[in-house]
Each structure stands twice: as C-alpha cells, then as structure tokens.
C-alpha cells in the first residue's frame, strides 16, 4: 500500500516525513509492546501503536520500520519527533483507535507481517 493511501485512510497528520508519498509499504504490525515489534515485524512495514514515545521510534529504527502511526491522536513530545526526524522515520498521528486503524488498512488490502 502506498504511503499516501495510508495517510488518507487513517486521516493522519504527518509529523515527520522524508520519503515520497508514493513509496510502497509492504506490511503492517499493530502492537504496544516493543519486543513484539522486534519479533514479528519485517522491514519496510508500518507500525501502528498507542505507545507515543521515543521507544517506539527507537525500536522501529532497529527493526527497519519506515512508518510509525500513533493512535487516538496522541501527540508525542519533542524528543520523540526529533528522533523520528533524525532516523528518517515517517511519523503519523491518526485520530482513530488501534482497532479502527487496523480495520481501515486491512479492509483496503494491507496485511500483517508474515512470520
């Protein structure tokens, strides 16, 4: 799924972005637990999380995740935004809950990282 489609479906606000909105994102992963991101995710995926903290960005960088979505309109602090800019991670905020965000992306064909 293209990044711009993810942004549109989630009615997301773009906080940081250094990639083309035509970029193709292959997989999705939805969790608040960082070890699970590391365990189940693949590179080039989108992480949907309620953990609007630096940890989510740091973990995504380690796991080569390119796009992070914070749910329920949670605004991250400036350190979190700075880190995502530095790590070239696209950071989005969606007003939707994790459930709704997953539903909207799944409905349009995005799938979770295969094991």
């Amino acid at each position, binding site marked *: 799924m293209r990044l711009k489609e993810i942004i549109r479906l989630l009615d997301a606000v773009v906080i940081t972005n250094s990639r083309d909105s035509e970029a193709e994102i292959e997989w999705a992963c939805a969790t608040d637990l960082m070890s699970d991101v590391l365990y189940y995710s693949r*590179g080039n995926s989108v992480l949907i999380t309620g953990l609007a903290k630096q940890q989510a960005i740091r973990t995504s960088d*380690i796991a080569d995740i390119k796009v992070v979505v914070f749910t329920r309109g949670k605004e991250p602090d400036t350190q979190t935004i700075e880190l995502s800019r530095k790590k070239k991670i696209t950071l989005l905020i969606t007003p939707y809950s994790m459930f709704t965000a997953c539903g909207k992306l799944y409905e349009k064909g995005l799938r979770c990282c295969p094991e």
Partner: protein
Amino acid sequence: MKIDKTYEGSFHIVGGDFSHAGEASTELKTILLSAGVEDEFVRRVAIATFEAEMNIMIYATAGILRYTISPEEIRIIAEDMGPGIENIELAMQEGYSTAPDWVREMGWGAGMGLPNMKKNADTFRIDSVVGEGTKVEMIIRR
C-alpha cells in the same frame, strides 16, 4: 570500511536509564551499516543487541555490552550486575516475564526479550547466578 580484520568495542549501560535506551545497539547498527554488511544481518544483530541492552536497563544496576566483529560473524557478550535469573528455562518461554508494571507501561517486559535474542542469534548461551548477575553470549553469522 570493509571488514577485513577483527574489530572490538564495548558499551557501558546504566540500569533504569530509559532516556538512553537503545543507543548502544543503534551505534553498533551504524558501525555495521557503514562497513557495508547486508541489511538482513544488520537487522538481526541490531534486534538481538537491543534486547540485551533493554534487559540490562530494565533489570540490572549496570552492565557492559562487548562486541567482536570479524569478516564472518559478530560475537556479542552482554554481562550485567543484576538480580540474576532463578529459572532460566521459564525465562526463555515466550510471554514469561517478571517485569514490574511501570516497565510494561513503557512497552517492555512482555516476556519476549530472551526468545527474541535466541531467534536472531545462531549461537545463544545464557548463564546466570541469582544475586550476582547474568551473562548472555550470542554469535550471529553472516
């Protein structure tokens, strides 16, 4: 920089210092990427190291993370001064954790740390003495 010999280095990690969580593994990742090694190998090393780093941060007073990079593999030794692990077999089970609630609220401590290290390492060894500390040794091959 090409890997044509052996490189060694280490990071000191202070327990409870969440603001610096992940910096050691990020630095190691940067070193490996600049050496031009394959992305998938770097990802495995970064994940395994990150988990080791987080375990020290969550459970121990302090610890040290040592690495040796050679052309074929990387060896990582994470050693801490911590409470030690009473039952290693149990600790290796996915989902088993003794982490306190505040750690869980930070998105950690869900019992996937050690399984994650084992998953990404080709060789994984853990030794622990209750009241003294824990030592994890991992070898990841290219």
